[in-house]
């Protein structure tokens, strides 16, 4: 019975993952990330992703502050922050976030404020989407682990 539940959950996970891949929310790097998870680091993905969100949310706040609080936005600074965000996003395979980042960077390089704000909003939306999807995924995984009776569901770090 437990096994059955686990299978079910695994199927759900696969379905969710494939839909995320299909929609372009995630790309191959996420699979790589998953492959890095082993018995030595059983929560590697969750860890990385939660750090990613912590970092990226800070960056987003900074970006927003840069864009909105100043009269003349410091585009160079924005670029630095964007590079960081892009680096992290591409590392975890957040494809769409990365793409929006590229767009935002282009706008910031051209000092297009309106475009920047637009992209930033899109970025925040993508971020949100990614977060909720991954949250769902991790929950599924946790449930699966519990269902399959594997004891090491050590999920102290949740996505908020």
């Amino acid at each position: 019975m437990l096994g059955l539940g686990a299978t079910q959950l695994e199927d759900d996970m696969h379905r969710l993952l494939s839909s995320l891949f299909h929609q372009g929310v995630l790309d191959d790097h996420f699979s790589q990330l998953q492959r890095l998870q082993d018995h030595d680091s059983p929560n590697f993905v969750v860890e990385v992703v939660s750090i990613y969100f912590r970092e990226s949310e800070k960056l987003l706040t900074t970006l927003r502050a840069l864009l909105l609080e100043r009269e003349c936005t410091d585009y160079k600074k924005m670029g630095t922050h964007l590079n960081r965000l892009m680096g992290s996003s591409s590392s975890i395979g957040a494809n769409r976030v990365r793409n929006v980042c590229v767009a935002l960077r282009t706008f910031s390089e051209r000092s297009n404020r309106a475009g920047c704000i637009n992209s930033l909003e899109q970025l925040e939306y993508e971020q949100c989407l990614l977060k909720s999807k991954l949250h769902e995924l991790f929950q599924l995984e946790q449930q699966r682990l519990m269902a399959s009776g594997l004891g090491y569901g050590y999920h102290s770090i949740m996505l908020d």
Partner: protein
Amino acid sequence: MVCEMGGDYLSDMEVEVLPSMWPVDLGNELGKQFNIEIPGASQELLEEVAIVEDPSVVDFKRLLELTNYSERGSSQLAYLVKQWEFKQNNAVRLLKEELDILSKQRQEVELKKLEILEAHRFEEDKYVGDKRPVSILDEGYDIWETIPRRRNEIVVQNSNFEIDSEYDSVKYWKQRAKELEKLLEESTRREQRLQDKLQENIENLARQSSPVEELSQILKRADNFLHFVLQNAPVVIGHQDKDLRYRFIYNPHPTLQEEEIIGRTDVEIFTGAGVKESQDFKKEVLERGLPAKREITFETELFGSKTFLIYVEPVFSKAGDTIGVNYMGMDITDQVIKREKMAKLREEIAVQKAKETELNKTIHITEETMRAKQMLATMSHEIRSPLSGVVSMAEILANSKLDPEQRQLLDVMLSSGDLVLQLINDILDLSKVESGVMKLEAAKFRPREVVKHVLQTAAASLQKELTLEGHITDDVPLEVIGDVLRIRQILTNLISNAVKFTHEGKVGVNLYVIPEPDCGHSGRCTQTVSDAQSSDSRKARVEDSIPAYPSNSYVEGGVSDEQPGSARIKASASLDDDKEDSLETKVWLRCDVYDTGIGIPEKALPSLFKKYMQVSADHARKYGGTGLGLAICKQLVELMGGHLTVSSQEHHGSTFTFELPCRVPLKRVHSDDTDEEISDMLDHDATMDDDEAKVGHFCFKPRTLGTLFSSGGPIARAKLLNNTINMQRSLPKETYSLPMSIHTTNDSAQVKNSCSATDTIDSSGSKFPREPMDIDNNESIIEEERKKNDQVCPQVNGCRSGSAELDALSYPSDNCSQPRQMSCSDPDNGNEKKQSCETSCKSQEHANRSLDSSGLSKAQSQAKILLVEDNKINIMVTQSMMKQLGHKIDIVNNGVEAVRAVQSCRYDLILMDVCMPIMDGLQATQLIRSFEETGNWDAAREAGVEGLPSCSGSQSSSQEALESWNRIPIIAMTANALAESVAECLANGMDSFVAKPVTFQKLKHCLQNYLSV
């Protein structure tokens, strides 16, 4: 018969006397202009009531003038005259008709006479009777009583004479002649009578219709009625001429005689408020020629305070010039008073209502606020309870056996939990203070010790090179009563704040006694002291304050007074000694917490103590924090009856000053139990004697810094190393020895000590100090939150092997011996290098090593790889990938650290991120390449990398090192995989590049190429 007829006629005629112009019997004929009614009874009544003294005073000459000159007067007169003329005409016409009739009758009579004569001659009786009806005009007057109609028709009857005698006899004729003669005589007589009557009528007419008499009669009647109507009305009527002299006045309650009024103006008659105004008003009307009304309040001696509604209308002459004013005043004093009362009432009601509304609003808002705060408090509490569970469980978990990764996660968890707890505690405190729930406790405590402990704690968790100092003047009482927990909280908050924003220099506390601040005190401590001068003067004041309040002044006096006071209290055995305390020995303590930090811009000062406010968004990012600390401090200080102020100079430092009233306890028995009472104090201090307790200076120098987390990072560490190495000569003797946390054991070496200091940071930095852990707990922790600055801890990991020199001094696997070995280091440069490497690694990695001894041996056989990367995600991913590929890597976060790592260790491969803070990958590569070429770090030193070994005296060894030093492959990791960027990398001395994000394949490929194992 004829006589009878004539008599009838005459009697009729007699009735027809012309009526008087003002008929007595007005009867019920209403609709007349004057609507006058004179009922018989009331006529007498009227006469009875008639005022004896005629209140109206008339200047008749003026009236005449008026009637002559004023339009209205003359028209009125003309009207009266016209009426009179009309009536006269009427009478004349009547008389004429009468006369006509009479003359006709006479003619007839004469005719008859002739006829008689003729008939007599012709002996024919042709007498014809007069049958003509007399009709007289029956039209009535408009105004005056209609002239009564002639009621009777005059019929002259023809009478036939009857003669007895035989016709045409002499007798007959004789008889007839006689008859006729008689008739004639009668007729003549009648004529005579008529003529008399006519004469009489004419006379009567002339007598009766004198116009003046009539007019005066009319006027008199009108006057009477007017008097009747007006006799009790509070109305004054008057007429004034062009010079505003009274010509007529009617006043029902006269107070002045006629001669006192007529011919004078208002101003001349009486004085007082309002007189002038009314005079001016009349003048205005006179000038403008338009009637007007005004309300004027008089305040005169004559009739006191009265308000009149005055109506003034101009009077025009025929030529259109104003020749005076008619004036009418009505006393409306009562109405005005009532009206004013009403207005006042209404106003009061409105005010009342507004107040009520306001009050309701306030109540509503207050309720809302209270509810919100209550909710906040409840929620915070609700959040805190489970969180405490989580944190304490995690702490218990931390004591169990965990692998490093788990421990790392657990540390993140703990630090995050602590942070949240701290935050919630802050919010709770704040809402408690605001909602008035916070209760202050009164306990004895020793201010010196509070300052000392707070500084000690701060020093223990200090992560940078700062001197912490405390100075307490001698006049500060040994013990005071207050809420020590809160005072500690305030001090801790201010000091940690000061530490947070100070990068070099010192942070200190001055505690001294001040006289009770007066009202203007807060004005003195303005928040805008920001210029250098005032800052200096502030410092001067602080320093002067010690002599300024000599020990025998206020407080000492209070203390000396204490003794008899206490004796007295003891004698009276008063239980209420709290009260006595407050009465006798209240002391104001002033505490300055100063620093030499970044200071506060002037514009940020006003919002400094507001909740959730930070100086700027930049600061918030850089320094973290919630912005609640100062708000809480201020509220707490104010709750205790003191005040908190700040003065600051940007880039030079800030001083937070709070002044608190404290009670000085009575020294009942100056014995051992005092110590027991200071329950709050740390246990191990309880035993100290008074001399120790009176120490007024504390100084914590940065010597004991053992952390790798300092904002200065490697720089601080390098200094520390130098310090450690040169300990024998540079150990400051005067430095206050910092008592280490409890677990610190007897003779642990200095470095061990520093490790434990690091440990102390971990525990004391959090609100819930964890159990001190053994040394392997000392690994580096990724906890951004706690460090609150952007510096990522340098993770120079695993530099324990790799270079031949270092290998030569192979480490004992027992890590506990390492520190000892460290402490007895020799000044040899190579060793120094090794040592610094070791130190930098030690505190982070030996835990790993001790737990993972298999990894240790494995690592020695492995290639040494350094990852230079600032992005945490990338670090984690790369690290994990490397792990899977069978490599352990060292990680640093920027170019400077990379240079230092390379300087202290040999690496087989460096993966270098290009974009990094502080120093980017390109420059770091250049510096490393420069070292490889020249064998010294001059270039790096020039570039500002500190803490590198000096080249003097180490030339040989570095040359030696260089010989065995191969060119380290440096691989760029760049997200900018554009052609020019790649070219740039290569131009700066990099060997290759990996496009980000890194993948297994890329890494593998790269390692295969460059690690020719």
